[in-house]
């Protein structure tokens, strides 16, 4: 009888249903953020005693050229990913929503990179980039462009771009599928009307398809921006942030500081900075976006 009473109390029932989720969220999502901020005030190797430093770590962060280089690289990755992934994914989606034969075959194969782990993609590309035995230099030599062969991941002036390429390769299929879904949701009548008005394919794309995809393109951009700011695994496995920090990202830097150099106090400082930068960019973008829609 008593349990029945409790179960008819909606507050008790709501709590019962929410407690498991709140437990996981609290321990692993919410508490870690203030905890990181707290650790950032200490000198600490992760095991031994913590020594209070005050804001020393933060002062160091502001004059840390490697950190700022990683921030710039993260934003470069945002820009590269937006410029490459959205147009190519859009282009492929437009091609794949044409009524021509064999579309399913192409779609099936095109999606495969998304199935591979970042680590697998990183190693696959590392062997394609291999200066002596790799596919890319091999092909360049084969077609007589031997002078273009490079130590792709070893040369600090191009390593960052070489490391950014497989990220594009892996994620284009995701946005391709998203755009395909959005394109097939555009009402047929719009295209018919445009055709009756004598619009050519380009005009149809720019005046019908693209405006109708606006929301989807913005969504995809948000995902790319947020994703690129917190990127880690592929770069870590490809270059480890090197050579000489050329491909360093905030996440690889914080990992190296915390778990290789065991400087967890300073690693926490970088963690909090990463959190704040991702937060500020997301909020700014969402705000700008809201304004944009109202206009």
């Amino acid at each position, binding site marked *: 009888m008593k349990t029945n009473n409790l179960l008819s109390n909606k507050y008790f029932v709501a709590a019962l249903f929410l407690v498991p989720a709140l437990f996981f969220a609290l321990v692993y999502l919410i508490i870690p953020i203030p905890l990181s901020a707290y650790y950032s005030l200490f000198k600490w190797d992760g095991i031994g005693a913590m020594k209070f430093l005050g804001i020393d770590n933060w002062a160091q962060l502001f004059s840390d050229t490697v950190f700022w280089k990683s921030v710039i690289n993260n934003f470069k990755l945002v820009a590269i990913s937006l410029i490459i992934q959205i147009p190519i994914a859009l282009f492929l989606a437009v091609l794949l929503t044409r009524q021509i034969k064999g579309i399913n075959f192409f779609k099936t194969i095109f999606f495969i990179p998304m*199935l591979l782990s970042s680590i697998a993609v990183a190693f696959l590309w590392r062997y394609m980039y291999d200066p002596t035995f790799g596919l890319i230099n091999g092909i360049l030599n084969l077609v007589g462009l031997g002078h273009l062969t490079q130590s792709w991941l070893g040369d600090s002036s191009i390593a960052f771009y070489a490391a950014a390429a497989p990220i594009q390769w892996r994620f284009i299929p995701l946005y391709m599928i998203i755009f395909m879904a959005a394109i097939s949701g555009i009402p047929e009548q719009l295209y018919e009307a445009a055709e009756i008005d004598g619009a050519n394919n380009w005009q149809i794309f720019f005046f019908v398809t693209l405006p109708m995809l606006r929301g989807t393109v913005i969504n995809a951009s948000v995902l790319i921006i947020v994703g690129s700011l917190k990127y880690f695994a592929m770069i870590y496995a490809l270059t480890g942030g090197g050579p000489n920090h050329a491909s360093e990202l905030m996440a690889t830097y914080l990992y190296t500081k915390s*778990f290789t150099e065991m400087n967890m106090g300073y690693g926490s400082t970088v963690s909090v900075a990463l959190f704040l930068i991702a937060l500020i960019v997301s909020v700014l973008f969402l705000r700008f976006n809201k304004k944009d829609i109202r206009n």
Partner: protein
Amino acid sequence: MIIKKIKAALIYLFLLIWLIITGYPMIFLVQNSFKIKMEFFQKPVWSLPASFTIKNYLDVINSGFYIYFFNSIIVCFISVFLIIIVSSLASYAIARIDFKFNKIIYILFLAGMMIPIHSTLIPIYKITLSLGIYDRLSALIGPYVAFSLPISVFILTGFINDIPYELEEAAIIDGANRIRIFKDIILPLVKPAISTVAIYNLTLLWNSFAYALVLTSSPTKRILTLGLFEFQGQHGIDIPLTLTALFLSVLPLIILYVFLQEHIIKGMTAGALKG
């Protein structure tokens, strides 16, 4: 007519170019996994293997690589199972029980999407140490469940909101309690959304890396991505052997994809489509 044919040819040309960009690395991967080391270093990488040797495959399997598959399967399945239970319970409360804080709790969960995984690595490492589960597979389950919650709650709450309320009303009038209603009425109806959530999280966790890197250390506790990472560290010079391990590591999802293509594509893009 001719213009139409040229257009079609152009479309196929572009599709073919992208087919090579996407597919050729995969062919490179498979064809070189069948070569022995000497052959790889002496002949061009695009040459077909002189004889299709499965020596590399045997070597990878004999090196104990299979344990990483088991570890990944165990961790991913337990995590996904927990994610489904925990997030559908929470979603039901948010969508259906009016407890005044519905909106705030919902927004709080969604805000979790903004948290970069890597900025939590140090505190979670520390929490794991104090819980005494460092270097155990169970150490991964907590963070996996937590980081899958926001998107799962988002998908499931949206889905439950779309279920007509009348279905529950009758049961409430009959005096059924909320737990029964959830179990007997809501859960069967949300099955499609649950399968989307399951596939989305399963593929994401299967390929995840950072937590396993930080929270486990002994070789027998490594999941597949970490196992591949360490295999490359040890055998990286033997390129065909490493390519074989790489190919084996991506095979499970590709096999799943062959059989459940539409479900996998739908599941993997769900987070992005609804987000």
